[in-house]
């Protein structure tokens, strides 16, 4: 049997508003159905249980929004990316929006950093927040296997903070490499009870040279 020629299309999209309450598994299913509805020539795996080849660069956690997220989808034909972006976008719910599509420049594993806007509901000032996060940042980090206290400060590339009405806007750039991903919620955990709530929006994904991942 001749191997099937596949074309990987990279879709840049946003997950906003109420979509932040949707888990990654549910997001995957939603995107899958949108792709089917889009009418694009989708590639299906050739096994017993055919499925799409759909890969997300770095899914945001529940309760977080993303202004910049990427997924790759394998197609059977080389299509016009702009038309594909339009087709997928019209098949997505309102809170999920495609910004653009293109053929990939880099691999997902070249992802190194991600930037965030974190709107903290707190009585702390920007200066205090910056001060607290300047030294060691020891938090309890949970993984599937274990729970340990680690210093996450090496995973914070940079951060700025700004006073705003009702709190502080924190803008960190955090490690997002496949083997060293830091969930921004740990910063909130570290700040403790003084933060009553936090709206987190991921703003960009970067490669090692701090160029937007494309």
């Amino acid at each position: 049997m001749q191997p099937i020629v596949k074309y990987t299309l990279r879709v840049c999209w946003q997950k906003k508003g109420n979509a932040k309450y949707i888990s990654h598994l549910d997001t995957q299913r939603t995107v899958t159905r949108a792709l089917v509805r889009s009418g694009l020539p989708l590639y299906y795996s050739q096994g017993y249980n055919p499925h799409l080849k759909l890969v997300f660069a770095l899914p945001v956690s529940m309760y977080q929004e993303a202004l910049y997220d990427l997924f790759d989808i394998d197609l059977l034909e080389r299509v016009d990316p702009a038309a594909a972006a339009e087709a997928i976008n019209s098949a997505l719910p309102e809170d999920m929006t495609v910004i653009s599509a293109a053929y990939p420049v880099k691999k997902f594993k070249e992802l190194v950093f991600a930037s965030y806007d974190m709107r903290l509901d707190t009585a702390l000032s920007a200066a205090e927040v910056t001060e607290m996060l300047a030294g060691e940042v020891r938090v309890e980090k949970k993984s599937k296997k274990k729970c340990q206290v680690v210093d996450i400060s090496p995973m914070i590339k940079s951060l700025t903070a700004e006073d705003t009405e009702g709190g502080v806007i924190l803008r960190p750039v955090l490690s997002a490499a496949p083997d060293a991903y830091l969930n921004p919620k740990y910063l909130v955990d570290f700040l403790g009870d003084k933060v009553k709530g936090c709206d987190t929006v991921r703003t960009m994904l970067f490669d090692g040279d701090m160029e937007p991942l494309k």
Partner: protein
Amino acid sequence: MNTDRIKHILARVEKPGRYTGGEYGELIKDKNAVDLRVAFCFPDTYEIGMSNLGMKILRDCLNAKDWLWCERCFAPWDDMEREMRREGVPLYALESGDDIKDFDIAAFTLQYELCYTNVVNMLSLAGIPLFAAERDESHPLIIAGGACAYNPEPMADFVDVFSIGEGEYALVELCKLYREYKKAGRPRAEFLRAAAKIKGMYVPSLYEVSYGEDGRISDFRSKYEDVPERIEKTFLTDMDSAPFPTCYEIPYIDTVHDRMVLEVFRGCIRGCRFCQAGIICRPVREKSPEVLDRQAREMYKRTGYNEISMCSLSISDYSGLEGLLERLLGWTEKERINLSLPSMRIDSFYGELMEKAMNVRQSGLTFAPEAGTQRLRDVINKNISEDEIMAGCAAAFDRGRTALKLYFMNGLPTETDDDIRGIATLAQKIVDLYYSKKRQKGKGVTVTVSVSCLVPKPFTPFQWMGQDTVDELKRKQLLLKECITTRKIVYNYHDSEVSFLEAVFARGDRRLSAAIAEAVRRGQRFDSWDEFFSYSTWTQVFEAVGIDPAFYANRSFDYDERLPWDHIDCGVTKEFLRREAELAVAETTTPDCRSRCSACGLQDKGCTLWKKGGAN
């Protein structure tokens, strides 16, 4: 909807995606541009309600009117309810996020008796007075429909108007009337009086019930001359032209039936004597394969689902099944869409096409012999012989199936211990059949025996018969357990206490409204969920309100007794049901409607089988 006011709550509850709306396909209208706002309330979780086809159909019919916006509302899970009550957030609709108490109409669907507490609890959560008598035109009109509305009495004190039968057109009619009265600013009482004149609409407050010293109903009559004594159900006559939604919200989160549902036909040619749906959904009305194929294609294009579930009672009785499957398989295979055929009869045609149509990934098949012996199957008019059961199982094994699930019932009328033992014997025979055949090496068989308890339902031949007591049902369940000696048979059975409560409400009258209100006051809800059902609470509730639940569940009603639901006309006559009840006791079967018309009462009211030569 805008979720700002509940943002902090959503961060604390499980599966917040149930409470935010915003799914693909959600219908948003300009609320200032409509005359009437309806909240379609499903008294169970989002996952269950979003799987319900009836709700989709009816919302679609209502939303087809540009002067009306019908939104969705589901029962919040208890973690969400706690948060809502603590923060003072009333029940709201998913599309606009607006409070239900500000809607014109809240429409509840009653799918099963154990959701009654949820309906009342949702009213309480919405901040709407629970009892109809406490409400006026400043509150939403509370209406209800669905299968349980055929005996509306237990919910009579809470609901303003019940819609009996199929609501596609009747509901629109009711809304039109409400719009008129709202515009004219006329009082609620006047509206209710007028609503009672629409076919299929039942306004319980316009009727008076008296009871005899023995507790039985002595009289039931309408309070006014212009209010009909009997309420006739409404139903569609032509399914091909029936409204059918092909475009609807695609849930973000996983729901119970997260797939396309294609309604193939309504009604059932069988006359199983325990089955309420088989009676109240009469007459049989089929859609044509062409229409179904077109609807399926359209649904696929608009939803992107990869499974079509065909929906009907007893799907293998659809006269166009082969043609339909051929048409569907012509394109679904290519699109990688699975078909699923639920409710197959074991004696049905089980050919290549059928096998092809069934989900290849599932190794099991489910059949429902319902009773363990031929005698008892004749009593319930299942019209399946043991040979047919064995042939069906053999065909399934020959095609490589190794897991069979069999549904049975306990507590059927005239049931003896031999009938119970017969279930074990039958299951064992099926296991032996598997091992008598040439089979794949190393592959064992699993026969799952799932036994429920009979709940005698209104509008069935068994409506007069008392349910076995909880103790008797438990004894029978244990007896069967002792009869099963192999681990190749997996035995499950239903909680008899749950079935008892179902029977109380299924055969109850309006005095039970007090028990429902009291149960809700004590925190009962989600009674159909194991984690919330509490038999002891219910026992205390009945005691507190002075009601003997056995009076409704376990007592056999006299044939000439006035039944709580006698004012509802489901199309099938009481004479037919009684005839069938007597035939049951005589262990005599009645042929299906295609073989011979049994004059159930619908033969001159739109039944087409009768005209097609089934008549005699």
